[in-house]
């Protein structure tokens, strides 16, 4: 039993994340292939939309993988290869949207909301009325308390 668990853990740890890239698609040059994979991971597969083209088995993803590898082999820089795809499919293909006026809300609203929240918390704490100090017990109350404590013992 323990052995099975250990084996399972080892397998989970060492099996690399399965990519959809087929052996036939890979470039012989490992440096180019690594660049192509890095680019492919940034690009959205438009058929499945939440997978990168590197992860997707869709036909179009396959075509785009091959295309990017062709572009890199032809001497494109990474930026040129990415631009080739965004020119045709728009910025939506980028899994990480670029920072530009149209995406400012997306990028900066979390910080704006955090700032507003911090400001609100600061104002609240600053204007909080101090809790009045406890009034001391009078004689009757003290007696009652002593009685109760004695009863408890």
């Amino acid at each position, binding site marked *: 039993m323990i052995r099975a668990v250990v084996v399972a853990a080892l397998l989970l740890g060492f099996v690399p994340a399965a990519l959809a890239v087929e052996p036939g698609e890979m470039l012989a040059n490992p440096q180019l292939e690594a660049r192509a994979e890095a680019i492919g991971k940034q690009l959205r597969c438009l*058929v499945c*939309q939440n997978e990168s083209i590197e992860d997707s088995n869709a*036909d179009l993803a396959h075509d*785009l993988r091959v295309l990017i590898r062709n572009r890199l082999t032809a001497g494109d820089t990474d930026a040129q290869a990415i631009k080739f795809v965004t020119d045709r*499919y728009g*910025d*939506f293909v980028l899994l990480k949207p670029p920072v530009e006026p149209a995406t400012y809300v997306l990028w900066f609203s979390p910080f704006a909301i955090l700032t507003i929240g911090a400001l609100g918390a600061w104002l609240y704490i600053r204007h909080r009325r101090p809790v009045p100090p406890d009034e001391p017990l009078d004689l009757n109350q003290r007696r009652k308390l002593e009685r109760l404590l004695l009863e408890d013992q």
Partner: protein
Amino acid sequence: MTWRRALYLLPLVGFVALAAYFFYGLSSGYNPELLPSALIDKPAPQFQLAGLNGAVPLTNQDFTGQVVFVNFFASWCAPCREESPILMDLARRNVIQLYGIAYKDKPADATKYLKEYGDPYRRVGVDETGRTAINFGVYGVPETYAIDRNGHIRWRFVGPLTPQAVQSQLMPLLKKLGAS
């Protein structure tokens, strides 16, 4: 200090605004899978495709000076069959110049498909590799593009055309581009 009291309502107001926005998103029929084309108002990509059945090749040179519609289809594509009667109707009424591009299809299969479901196209080019489709930004068939007299893409429709889309989008566009 009533305005301070009102401040406590702010989260509620925020929640209602957000809920209304989400409800709008769910109910307005917005489909995140339908993407705007990156090529709107840009020149249509250059291409030269083998004509179906040994016809002369189809190139974008054939479109110059005319308002044309280009429809990407495939024999293996089920929604294309759904769309076919609408395209046939447009062709019969002769309202648009419609060209077809067979996406990732064998010429024999495309020919058979057009025999079976009708051929609404003036001419058909065969894009067996799908490269021309990628240049257009196609990410599924069917897709329909409108190209104006200057060779610029003016409209893209993803998925099968519907009578509503023809009425509300295609016809007004046709009028605007001054075709007939």
